[in-house]
């Protein structure tokens, strides 16, 4: 995959005549190369422009006017979305959420992030790009904090609106690592276990237990993987951690390595965050020089650990740990059957601990301040704080570090959206709740979330949101298993039928049945959660659906239009339907 990425970067695409060569070099088959290129959104087998403009098509961006921005780009360049200009200068595409929902509409120009776009800005952007085709020229003013670092130079704003006592407060660098090295690996795992730290990516597995499994698993080489592929639409909290707390994250990975006995770490960085790569490489280098990575870390004899960065190439499913591992191994990001879990047989079939960026940061802080300190924050069953990225129809979108147990109502007050009509918790794969449920708590036992909170006002058509989410899942399904590949398409088709006013009450039962089977029968987390937008709105916003469907006793399907179905034939044969046109 790295080879393919490099060719892509060099030529702007991967010419099919090179597949054979790449396959030979990588010791694999041509079809493997081909499937990698077709799998990832950021790889292409067709020549792309010098500047590839990828507009974020997330529902939040659309509500903030992404369609108008897209139209402005199309107008300015004289091409449609998905096309490349004839002079080979520009390619225009839609892409899934790029983690900038708090400054939408946003886009990527190659690796450069463009935020807060408006149709008025578009002509200026294109004019500036035509000069040197270097998107970095567009960055006139950098964002705050690490965004202004010479190696980042991004116009992205952190939008940190609340700092908690775990992650975003001021803390002593390397204090956690220092205390770790005074303990045995078993003691470290015991400390993490005692703190009750649960995985921050969304699934909430106990981190200490995972490390314990990895430590106990048979295998010479063990691996520490950091999941920085936050692809769940509306999530952008890791973006802030990567920008502001990279050392803390790497410190956490180093602690994980010490406790599990791993010598290699990989940060899997999503392609959308490529603008942070040079910066993170530099952090790694700095740590190597300071003796915090490499051999005999901090003078501890026999403790060797180093980290490399693996770039993603635009695939939501790679946030799922087994897909992420496949992707790190350089193949398509297909999910794998579990068990065996990665802790037993993960990367290169070796014991592997995969954790979220935020989990590693928390672990480093726990080692510094102690399990009891951490345990006392949050609720009894959900310890610590949670980084939430809030976006949508609220006055103050951004990143909030809050203790677990905060109610939705309290959060909405903070972000300035008390009158919200609906809140999507945990992104499209989570659930949408209505006003009656704002007393519920954000924690693992009630409303778990990886960080994504989307707020929708009463003006929004919630079924448009659901439709956009289903479209997203259809695009991102890897296609391996039928329930996910086909089920999501059928769900969306039926939803569209209902939205067009052609639905009957039975269609709602159909959605529920098919949604549940898709959840139950799918192979990985994507398909197991993809019907949630429909299932949770059917449950929480039933009146919207009920108002759209109408009982029909004729027995005919309103969605079938025979005149439309014979249109083609009518045109080809030059005659009209004897049976139906006469009616």
């Amino acid at each position, binding site marked *: 995959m790295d080879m393919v990425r490099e060719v892509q970067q060099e030529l702007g695409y991967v010419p099919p005549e090179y597949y054979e060569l790449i396959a030979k070099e990588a010791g694999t088959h041509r079809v493997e190369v081909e499937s990698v290129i077709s799998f990832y959104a950021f790889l292409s087998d067709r020549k792309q422009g010098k500047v590839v403009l990828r507009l974020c098509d997330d529902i939040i961006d659309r509500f903030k006017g992404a369609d108008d921005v897209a139209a402005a780009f199309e107008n300015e360049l004289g091409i449609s979305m998905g096309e490349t200009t004839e002079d080979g200068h520009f390619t225009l595409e839609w892409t899934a959420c790029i983690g900038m929902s708090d400054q939408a509409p946003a886009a990527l120009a190659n690796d450069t992030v463009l935020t807060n776009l408006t149709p008025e800005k578009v002509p200026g952007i294109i004019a500036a790009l035509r000069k040197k085709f270097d998107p970095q020229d567009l960055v006139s003013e950098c964002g705050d904090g690490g965004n202004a670092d010479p190696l980042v130079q991004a116009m992205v704003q952190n939008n940190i609106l609340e700092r908690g006592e775990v992650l975003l407060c001021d803390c002593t660098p390397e204090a956690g690592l220092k205390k770790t090295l005074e303990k045995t690996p078993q003691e470290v795992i015991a400390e993490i276990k005692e703190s009750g730290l649960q995985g921050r990516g969304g699934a909430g597995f106990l981190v200490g237990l995972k490390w314990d499994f990895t430590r106990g698993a048979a295998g010479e080489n063990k691996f520490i993987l950091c999941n920085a592929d936050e692809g769940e639409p509306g999530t952008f909290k890791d973006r802030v951690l990567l920008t502001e707390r990279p050392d803390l994250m790497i410190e956490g990975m180093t602690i994980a390595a010490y406790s599990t006995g791993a010598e290699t770490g990989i940060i899997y960085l999503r392609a959308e965050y490529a603008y942070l790569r040079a910066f993170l490489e530099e952090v790694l280098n700095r740590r190597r020089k300071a003796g915090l990575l490499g051999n005999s870390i901090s003078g501890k004899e026999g403790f060797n650990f180093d980290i490399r960065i693996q770039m993603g190439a635009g695939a939501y499913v790679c946030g799922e740990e087994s897909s992420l591992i496949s992707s790190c191994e350089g193949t398509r990001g297909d999910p794998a059957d579990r068990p065996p879990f990665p802790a037993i047989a993960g990367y290169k079939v070796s014991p592997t601990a995969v954790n979220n960026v935020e989990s590693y940061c928390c672990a480093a802080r726990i080692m510094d301040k102690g399990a009891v300190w951490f345990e006392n924050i949050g609720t009894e069953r959900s310890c610590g704080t949670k980084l939430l990225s809030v976006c949508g129809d609220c006055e103050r979108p951004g990143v909030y570090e809050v203790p677990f147990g905060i109610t939705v109502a309290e959060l909405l007050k903070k972000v300035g959206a008390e009158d919200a009509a609906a809140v999507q918790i945990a992104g499209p794969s989570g659930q949408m709740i209505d006003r009656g449920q704002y007393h519920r708590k954000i924690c693992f036992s009630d409303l778990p979330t990886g960080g994504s909170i989307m707020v929708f006002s009463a003006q929004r058509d919630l079924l448009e949101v659901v439709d956009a989410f289903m479209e997203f899942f259809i695009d991102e399904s890897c296609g391996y298993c039928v329930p996910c590949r086909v089920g999501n398409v059928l769900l969306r088709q039926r939803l569209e039928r209902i939205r067009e006013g052609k639905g009957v009450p039975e269609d709602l039962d159909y959605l529920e049945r098919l949604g549940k089977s898709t959840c139950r029968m799918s192979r990985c987390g994507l398909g197991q959660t993809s019907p949630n937008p429909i299932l949770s709105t059917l449950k929480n916003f039933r009146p919207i659906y009920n108002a759209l469907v109408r009982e029909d006793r004729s027995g005919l399907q309103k969605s*079938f239009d025979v005149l439309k179905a014979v249109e083609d034939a009518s045109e080809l044969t030059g005659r009209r339907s004897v049976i139906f046109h006469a009616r």
Partner: protein
Amino acid sequence: MSKPKIATTSLAGCFGCHMSLLDIDERILQLIELIDFDKSPIDDIKKIEGRCAVGLIEGGCCNEENVHVLQEFREHCDVLVSLGDCATMGGIPAMRNNIPLAECFDEAYLTGITVYNPSGQVPNDPDIPLILDKVYPAHEVVKIDYFLPGCPPSADAIWAAVTALLSGKPIELPYELLKYD
């Protein structure tokens, strides 16, 4: 009390399901004790005449006449059953669904390698029903109450389904009746 009526039709199908229906063999004598046939290839009645308890649909809809017949069945039958895979999901005829109609015509009447058509005409008699843009399974055109899968469903499966419908008893379709290899 007069016997309930059953109507059957083969739309975009191969009549295989109807052949399977005939495979109930001597049980057809029992069947006609229980029911009368209305419109059906079995008695060659062309138009549905009265109220039917059950309509068996073989095949999906590939042309406007299929749609017309199917809608008529829906109007006259209390219970409609999609009989076999073509009615249920389009089946073999639906293989053309991803190919534009004009290309299908070309392949079938003009450029196909087994085509002998010196006049180069594509059949276009006013009596030929207009073909639909694609083949639709029956339930996309009208509401279907039950689906009996199989290509074709076995005679025993059809027998089990029809007798259950007529007696109002729950249907028993053991695994053997729905297993096709």
